[in-house]
């Protein structure tokens, strides 16, 4: 018997984007307000888990055709790359730089290389949680 999850599925479709937005907000706000890559990553994967609950693994992986294990690698590469990038400028490992820039669309914006590092954290956390949940979910 197939249950009809229409309310759950409809609600998920709406809530998913709210959660994603909140996650992205947490991530970007990290440097000035509570949040950061870790919580942002967890929240993003929480949104995907919600879809997993409402639909099934197959559907979700069609929606997000990502191999999360590769995401872990990409994230680590981001973090390690940011760390190693400092070496190119003849400063110690993991030295960050920041400054205000006038960007065409955003106007005056503060940019920080720590953000790149945090992106690495963000991607790794998503990759890790999704790999674990998907692997356990798929196993019989």
């Amino acid at each position: 018997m197939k249950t009809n999850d229409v309310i759950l599925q409809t609600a998920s479709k709406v809530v998913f984007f709210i959660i994603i937005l909140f996650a992205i907000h947490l991530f970007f706000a990290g440097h000035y307000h509570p949040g950061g890559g870790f919580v942002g990553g967890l929240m993003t994967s929480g949104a995907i888990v919600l879809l997993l609950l409402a639909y099934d693994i197959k559907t979700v992986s069609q929606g997000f055709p990502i191999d999360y294990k590769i995401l872990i690698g990409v994230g680590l590469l981001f973090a390690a790359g940011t760390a190693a990038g400092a070496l190119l400028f003849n400063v110690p490992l993991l030295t960050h730089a920041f400054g205000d820039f006038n960007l065409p669309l955003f106007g005056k914006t503060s940019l920080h290389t720590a953000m790149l590092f945090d992106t690495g954290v963000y991607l790794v956390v998503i990759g890790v949680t999704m790999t674990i949940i998907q692997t356990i979910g798929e196993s019989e």
Partner: protein
Amino acid sequence: MSLLHIAIFSPFLMAILVPLFYKGLRRIHTGWFVLILPIVLFTYFLQFLPVTRNNEAIEKSFDWIPSLGVRFTAYVDGLGLLFALLITGIGALVVLYSIFYLSKEKEKLHNFYVYLLMFMGAMLGVVLSDNLITLYMFWELTSISSFLLIAYWYDRDRSRYGALKSMLITVFGGLAMLGGFLLLSIMGDTFSIRELIAQASELNDHPLFLLALVLVLTGAFTKSAQFPFYIWLPDAMEAPTPVSAYLHSATMVKAGIYLVARLSPIFAFSEYWFWLVGGVGIFTLFWGSFNAVKQTDLKGILAFSTVSQLGLIMSLLGVGAAALQFDGINDNVYTAATIAAIFHLINHATFKGSLFMVVGIVDHETGTRDIRKLGGLLSLMPITFTIAVIGAFSMAGLPPFNGFLSKEMFFTGMIQLLDLDLFNLQTWGILFPVLAWVGSVFTFIYSMMIVFKTFTGKYQPEQLEKTPHEAPIGMLIPPIILAVLVVVFGIFPNLLSYNLIQPAVAAIIPSLIEPGEKIAVHISHWHGFSTELKMTIGVVALGAIMYVTVNKWNKVYNLFPNKVTLNTLYDTSLYAAERGAYTLTKSVMTGFIRTYLVYIFIFFIGILGFTMWTEDAFKIDTSQLAPIGIYEVVLALLILLGTVTTLIARSRLTSILALGTVGYTVSLFFVIFRAPDLALTQLVIETVSVALFLLCFYHLPKLSRHEERMSFKLGNLLISAGVGVTVTLIAISSHSNKWFDSISKYYIDNTYEKAGGENMVNVILVDFRGFDTLFEICVLGIAALGIYGLIKLRLGKKGGAIDENE
């Protein structure tokens, strides 16, 4: 690297070549190639005789580990040369003998000669080293090569047993000796024996002196098979007979004698040295000869006889130490004991070597060494018989052989002790001549047994595996040479006096001799109708009577049951050690993780509690405490409730949920302690981990899914309470002992100034201390891949993937 060093190392170099000869030139017995080396070495060492005759020495040295003061100093004096000549001379004879003893077709000759050459080189190194460390190195090499040689027929059980036994005992002694050497070098600040001898009188008062003495003697006694370490020697008789003749009578077992003689100038002033060396030696003499009589195997008799004769030499060296208590060598009668020791050392090497070869011949030609089966071989093997008579009569101490002379000198040394007013000798001194005399009686008995039980009596061809006949000439030449030496030294003992004995004695008691002076060594056959001669006559008379009536009194050996022997002690203690270690491991390593946790926790409580206690570290300082608000109290009660529920819940599901409560309360604590980042993270992580717990719970196997409360164990309660109390005490104490201000002020000041952020936690995580974060995300990645690997990669025991459908 001088010629002398090359001479010492040449056996090792030759040993490398032996397998080439063996594989390349199969038709010629490998022994012939090997034979060249000891002969060359023997003649090489002979050329030092004129040097050592004048009590001079040759010294060649090269650095081995200069930073540690380890040099390889080759030092040739009278004592070293005497041993070097014994080693190479008897070595040559044994190699010649082995050529005829070991079959070219059946035996693994390359192994045999490699081991033998290794042993020869090691032995030369022992006797010619002046450096304690090199001496020790060669010493252990002799142990190892002896081990290999005893187990030469490694497919026999008894060989392996004997090899293991000798290895364990001699290596035990060797390690003790190394300890003694290190103590000596600490005391004297040098590894050189001659430099140590030079400062002997200062070493005598050192607090470590006695310990060094005992340790060095342990090494010497184990190697030289003294009581109670002699037990390996009879079992080492499983080796091929050339090995027994070479190692276990003439050379290796004399390494301990050499060590005692070599270090006498350092230790011999001490009373302990006198009693240990002399006392152990004389008792070994008695014990060895007493036990030799009950043996039925010819090699067994010879093994115990070797033990006994080594005890004789050892006791003479101990007694010779008394000479050092008097100044000068004029009128110093106690040097006689040392002279006798060296003389008997040479004699023993000659007659015991020949006797072993005789026994080897008998074994080779009849197939047995059991004296109960042998008999009546006199007419069949006349030459062997003649050699046996010469060797055995010399061993028994009968004229005109060399054994007679050294035994007389031995008695002289022992009797002179009675006049000595030292070391409490008035009370116990009488034991020396008495034990010496009794031991000699037994020596006479077993010497006669070797000759007469083997060669006379009834011929029993049905008991023998082969038809006996005279040995091939090559097998006879080495024992003939030795027997001739026995006779020659017996008739012209003074051939040796100033060539070999005097320089060796001078090396043992150097402090008595002025430069250019010589010790009077004159061995005379007839020194009047003295006490010694009466003792010898007594030995022969009583020995003859006892030999004839041996069947009447040999029940005395049954007085000691077989269980009360040193062998049983060795076997049971080895068994007990293995058993004990096994039981201990079994009882401690239970295989249960909870047991190990108990160990860890008890150790944790013990070490921390003990430190707190001894350091008086507990301290409460309430001045730094913040006021407690109502929220904290409520949350603390909540968390307590959650904890208690987790512990006493009947169902696992309740425990999981209670644990979740604890987690969420912790995140509430983070909220009221103003840690929003932590609160957020804790909230999400707690959710994830509770979900995972539920997953685990859902998949528990149905069969053993008992819903029952955690069982109560008082021990567990006490340990967990102990851990809790310990941690709490430490937390309180460390909070009350803040010695430095926190460094967080720096972060507060610089978060925006230098890092361009306002969220201090995040700035610390990604900027100030981003290095930690880098590796924490690595940990996460590894965990994820680990889970992926665990679930996806299901290999069976043989490495193949498990098919999940089966």
